[in-house]
């Protein structure tokens, strides 16, 4: 079976989205729903061969596809994946199925547009993960903002306009600086090919500027402290599906960008600035965790917890050892499942109570026992309980940090305390105790559809928690290759 898997992975969801858009109207919303479900499952199935056909011993780019696209600027349609991109692609197509299912009954207006936005977004994000040409990457990177902008703005909460415009402008600013970096590199190499950039020797000033431009793009996206302020707004206002995609995938794009562009293209600058990056990461881990502790709004709490966890990812990346970097990868994938599941849990409650405030709940376990069991599992995974996927990544990063510097590890390890504190405190106030009010007493437990979604996610969380081997196996060769590459200076004359 030989077909361009990556192209299919990108274009099947996009075409499915266009089809849903073209056939849909609110009179026969069910057609749109089924079509979208079918499209998302098909898109997931076409990405599955990536897992089987991937050569785990090869750290370079695999399954490459190339074609001339815009010869005037030497731009190519060049795709390929390595051990970092491949798991993220699977995560993307998997999450899309979940999001489509999660929206089944919740979204009642403009169903076709909602479903299409997520399908198209899925294709574009897969494009981001597989593009090996600067401009191709940039196209996908920016285009992906448009459906998210619409999703938050149309189906979002009361303050959605502010949130979505902030989200868009923040990201756009960072991205445009990245574009300038690409153009600069183009004039150096006369190419937009990523592999050419990897070989390019650059003086330190240029490296620092390039790293800075990429930093603006990716730090906003992850997000790192202090450019994280768009995220809580966007998360709180977005509909459940939007929050899930934002947390599960879009944040990973930033981390991916660092690994794919900023670090290998400007390794000397990355080394030079690693202390700075680690400091920002640790501030995110500790300070943002404290901020999460005082949140009254469940979605906001999870949003801050995401930023804190992403601090772990950047910490793992910038301590430059295999354990840290693989830990960062595991953490990204795990966070994709866990944060997605947490947002879905909030969505389940919100659909019934139309409130995200912690104080409006209490004693949910009495009326929704099955749901509470799952929700508590996800909360535990978020706090990094051993046996869940959340633990593996954090543990690896802390071990890696310990190798680098004892104090990094100490600060990083506080997250195990703070994370448990804010998560468990929320769990206690929302799920346990006596029934808080009349509305909680009338709650109905989750239906089969919700059970299916949360159940699958619970399996993934537990699965990767107990047996993370398949994931580390995939990333291992790539991480080693990246670190070897990073260890060599690219300053001219060295």
């Amino acid at each position, binding site marked *: 079976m030989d077909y361009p898997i990556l192209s299919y992975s990108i274009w099947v969801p996009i075409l499915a989205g266009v089809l849903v858009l073209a056939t849909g109207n609110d009179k026969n919303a069910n057609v749109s729903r089924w079509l979208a479900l079918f499209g998302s499952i098909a898109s997931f199935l076409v990405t599955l061969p990536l897992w089987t056909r991937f050569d785990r011993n090869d750290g370079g780019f695999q399954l490459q596809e190339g074609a001339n696209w815009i010869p005037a600027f030497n731009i190519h349609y060049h795709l390929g994946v390595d051990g970092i991109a491949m798991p993220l692609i699977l995560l993307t197509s998997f999450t899309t199925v979940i999001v489509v299912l999660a929206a089944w009954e919740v979204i009642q207006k403009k169903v076709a*547009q909602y479903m299409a936005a997520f399908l198209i977004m899925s294709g574009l994000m897969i494009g981001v993960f597989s593009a090996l040409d600067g401009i191709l990457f940039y196209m996908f990177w920016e*285009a992906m903002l448009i459906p998210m902008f619409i999703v938050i703005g149309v189906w979002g909460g009361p303050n959605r306009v502010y949130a979505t415009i902030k989200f868009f402008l923040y990201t756009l600013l960072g991205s445009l*600086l990245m574009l300038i970096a690409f153009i600069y590199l183009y004039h150096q190499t006369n190419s937009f090919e990523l592999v050419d950039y990897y070989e390019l020797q650059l003086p330190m000033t240029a490296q620092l500027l390039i790293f800075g431009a990429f930093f603006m793009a990716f730090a906003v996206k992850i997000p790192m402290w202090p450019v994280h302020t768009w995220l809580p707004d966007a998360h709180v206002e977005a509909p459940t599906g939007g929050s899930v995609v934002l947390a599960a995938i879009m944040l990973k794009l930033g981390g991916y960008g660092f690994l794919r562009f900023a670090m290998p293209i400007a390794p000397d600058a990355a080394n030079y600035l690693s202390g700075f990056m680690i400091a920002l990461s640790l501030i995110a881990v500790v300070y943002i965790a404290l901020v999460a502790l005082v949140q009254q709004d469940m979605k906001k709490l999870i949003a801050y917890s995401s930023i804190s966890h992403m601090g772990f990812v950047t910490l793992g990346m910038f301590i430059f050892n295999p354990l840290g970097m693989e830990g960062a990868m595991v953490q990204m994938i795990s966070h994709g499942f866990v944060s997605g599941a947490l947002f879905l849990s909030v969505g389940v409650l919100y659909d019934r109570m139309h409130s995200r405030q912690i104080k409006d709940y209490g004693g949910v376990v009495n009326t929704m026992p099955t749901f509470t069991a799952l929700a508590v599992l996800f909360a535990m995974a978020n706090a990094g309980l051993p046996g869940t996927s959340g633990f593996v990544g954090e543990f690896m990063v802390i071990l890696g940090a310990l190798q680098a510097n004892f104090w990094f590890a100490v600060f990083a390890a506080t997250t195990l305390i703070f994370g448990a504190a804010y998560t468990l405190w929320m769990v206690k106030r929302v799920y346990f105790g006596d029934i808080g009010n009349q509305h909680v007493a009338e709650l109905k437990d989750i239906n089969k559809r919700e059970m299916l979604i949360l159940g699958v996610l619970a399996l993934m969380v537990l699965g990767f928690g107990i047996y993370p081997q398949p994931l580390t196996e995939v990333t291992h060769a790539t991480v080693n290759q990246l670190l070897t590459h990073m260890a060599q200076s690219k300053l001219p004359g060295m």
Partner: protein
Amino acid sequence: MNPIFNDIYAALPEVFVLTMAMVILLGDLFIQERYRFVTYVMAQVTLLGAAMITIATHTSAVGYAFNGLFVDDPLSDLLKLMTYLAVSVVLVYSRGYITARGMYRGEFYVLVLMAMLGMMVMISGQNLLTIYMGLELLSLCLYSLVALDRDNARATEAAMKYFVLGALASGMLLYGMSMLYGMSGSLDVSQISNAILNGSPDHAVLILGLVFVVAGIAFKFGAAPFQMWIPDVYHGAPTSMTLFVGSAPKLAAYAMTIRLLVQGLQNMVHDWQGMLIIMAVLSIIIGNITAIAQTNLKRMLAYSTISHVGFLLFGFFSGTLNGFIASMFYVASYVLMTLGGFGIILLLSRKGFEAENLDDLKGLNNRSPWYAFLMMLLMFSMAGVPPTIGFYAKFAVLQAALQAGYVWLTVFAVLLAVTGAFYYLRIVKLMYFDEAEDHHAIRTSPDMALVLGVNGLAMLVLGIFPQRLMELCAYAVLHSVQ
């Protein structure tokens, strides 16, 4: 063969358009009101015929006619083809609008064709006087077009402002040209270039002439600090005229800049570079920041035009062929975007109602998802977000400026592009996130629906496959500018 035939052969499209304009002018007198459609069809046939003649007589060589007054090169051919296309789209979009407002008369078509003739002469002008003649023909037709709805006080005021400022700018241009003539002893663009290269006439006077010429060009483009007329004219003119004023003439202004600055004054590149940088930066600042404060859609698009002109000048001041190609690509995509943007405004207007406030776009997605989608594409294209053509336009000019070494100017432009993105996003917000206030069904003729659809989708299609258009621009510039 008699040399006069060679001359006429080179200028065949112009001759054809002039003849047809005369035929329409006379023929329209004998056409009854209810057969006015014939005039419209004849105008479209004129454009089609001119396009066919231009393609048929096209060669990749540069040919001069009328003793060097007139040039027929690939650049002029391509720009003329783009002009025909733009004018044709203008005619399609404006028909319903002018019919509802009593301007569906023969004069409209004659004036549009004569204005186009002026643009064609400008595009092919190789002599200061030819260029000036074309410019005046274009401008006079535009003034009268803006004032065509003579009972409309606002339009008359706009026409008056346009005329007074336009005359001033033409005067400045002519004054600058006279100094160039005085210093070089010639009106011919290439001879001026040689004269500057060989002898070193009084540099101060040359620079003074250059300043006036640049001011004239800036006025025609609407670049700051000569942008004052743009918002008032765009706002005051009937929307169909705004559509015309805002689109095709920019192609002619591009040609004028190439002929005067690049071909004529290429040896003074270091002198005009600085001026263009200041104008570009000012235009981007004024355009993008002032546009945020607008509540009127036409005014907002006017300020957006000013900022687009700023970006366009980025290609010019880089002073390289690469930059001129990028600018040409920018002009072409700008014209497409402007046509589409004003097309949507025309679509939403109807008899007795002018859709010109931002609020008139509210809830467009509920009224018509298709047109909302097209407008969204147009807005993202203007904001320069991929995968639309506007992205490649900005990409092309910025990379040209970077190549020429203007790193910080590029960063600056990019920061202001983010500011600019805000007001385009606001349009998308109004269309998608707000509820409709106006619940009239959107009615349109099938030809307009079709052309508008193609226009909007072109943003996306050309955004994904820009290669062809880039090649064309590169071909035209490389074969015409040495």
